[in-house]
């Protein structure tokens, strides 16, 4: 029976400990949210990617031989139709509405472009042969 005060004391400590734990967790949560608020806007990262890709494009395109400028246009045509990803996401949402329909139309036209662009590029390139 003389152990009872010890148990009570320990239980009290446990309660206060858990209270402080809750408090700490709360602080952590608040800190975390402040971190998210302070986090860099994703557009900065995207802008970085965009500008670096512009530089890559600049150096790669200057290397293209002028004789292949027409195939260059048709292949860039095909790959810029990667915009189809946006249309596919629009078309894919479960609750069907106008957004889906527009998505479907865009998927159709973009895929005309993708397939057509790559095939016509291939057709042209196969003509450039050394005799």
């Amino acid at each position, binding site marked *: 029976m003389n152990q009872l005060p010890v148990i009570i004391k320990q239980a009290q400590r446990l309660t206060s400990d858990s209270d402080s734990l809750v408090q700490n967790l709360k602080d952590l949560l608040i800190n975390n949210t402040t971190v998210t608020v302070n986090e860099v806007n994703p557009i900065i990262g995207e802008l970085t990617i965009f500008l670096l890709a512009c530089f890559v494009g600049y150096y790669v395109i200057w290397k293209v031989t002028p004789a292949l400028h*027409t195939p260059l246009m048709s292949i860039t045509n095909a790959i810029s139709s990667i915009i189809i990803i946006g249309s596919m996401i629009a078309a894919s949402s479960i609750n069907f509405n106008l957004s889906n329909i527009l998505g479907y139309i865009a998927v159709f036209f973009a895929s005309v472009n993708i397939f057509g662009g790559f095939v016509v590029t291939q057709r042209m390139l196969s003509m450039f042969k050394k005799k």
Partner: protein
Amino acid sequence: MSLDLIQLSYLVSAICFIFALKGLSSPKEARIGNFIGIFGMIVALAVTMQLPNFAHKTSILITAIGGGIIGIFIARKIAMTAMPQLVAGFHSFVGLAAVLASYSALIAPENFGIVTDEGLKFSALIEMSLGAAIGGITFSGSSIAWAKLQGVMKSNSLKFAGQHYFCLVLGIVLVTLTIFFVREQSFLLFNLVVILSLLLGVLLIMPIGGADMPVIVSMLNSYSGWAAAGIGFTIHNNLLIITGALVGSSGAILSYVMCKAMHRSLFNVIFGAFAAVNSDINNSISKTEKIAKISSPEDAAHMLKNSSSVILVPGYGMAVAQSQHAIREMTSILEAEGINVRFAIHPVAGRMPGHMNVLLAESNIDYDKVLELEEINHDFAKTDIALVIGANDVTNPAAKNDPHSPIYGMPILDVEHARHVLFIKRSMAAGYAGIENELFYRDNTLMLFGDAKKVIEEIIKFLNEN
């Protein structure tokens, strides 16, 4: 499939696209490059379908395959001479897809994760309207370019006084509306932005035609890239951003190359439609009594046969007359005689960058014999005959000698240095720039009038006779 894996796959696609473009540095690598590009596209499409919450898979796939079949059909049937209008038509589809995608994002932003508690994100609204506006200009502008190249629409139609100022005002209104749209988030304002950008695309491209077409086609190529990048920013997709940037810079570089080849600024090409009107006046003054020497296919055949080196200079006239196969035949006959036959290509010959190269490649001419301006220009002095087929302005010495000429400063092919110059032309009419070519009246110049294909077939006939 986890989102991380999907993003990584997009990176793979992006790198494939870079290699596809890099491959175009030589014809041999280009074919492999194209396949790498196709692989990148397949990866991108396949992983997109693995996104969580991606419903209606079958119907989307069927739609894509349906479009694909039509695309393949067009790509296989199209004549090589019709390549400029095909490219222009395809650009318009990218623009259309961009407009539709931005509408989808506005109607159902929750699908793209761009919605916050207070409605759409501020940045998303800007990117959305940017994507829609560039897409709109690309769509309508490319449609007009297609109609002109296809011949459905007259080259110089719809010009009115103050058009450029009107376009400027329209552009300012467009920017203002965009700002209001971002603040108000109103559907009506978004519609207005799209309508105005469509109108702007039409008005910008309408007054431009003829030899300025290569610049316009490249410029629209660039726009289609920027439109894709705009949508990439809207829906936070790095692959779209990277690809858009690649295509955008590609088109921009091509426009720059074309403008440099004409010694004009991009601004001048787009807004310089009035200059053409003024040059007509200069024309009538300079017209003195000069006589050009007219030759016949028989004489031409005789001259060609007795030469040891020939440089052919093809222009848009070759494409119009579909004469590349006849040219190939004539080249073979001359080469069998031991004559050195080569081709000189001016950067702006034809209606799109590289137009002539593709046509000559189609008719089976070795690409090693097809040379660019800088590569071959010095060789004209050592050449017996320069045979110009349906080209004019790109050979006009006025570009070097006459500071008042509208084409002054434009790099030209020095055909005048060849011992003899033969021009195959439909008539004595001036070239696109509306200026006369003094070369026609030189002592060492002979003119052959007629359709390029028919004239060359006649020459072949006489070559075979002797």
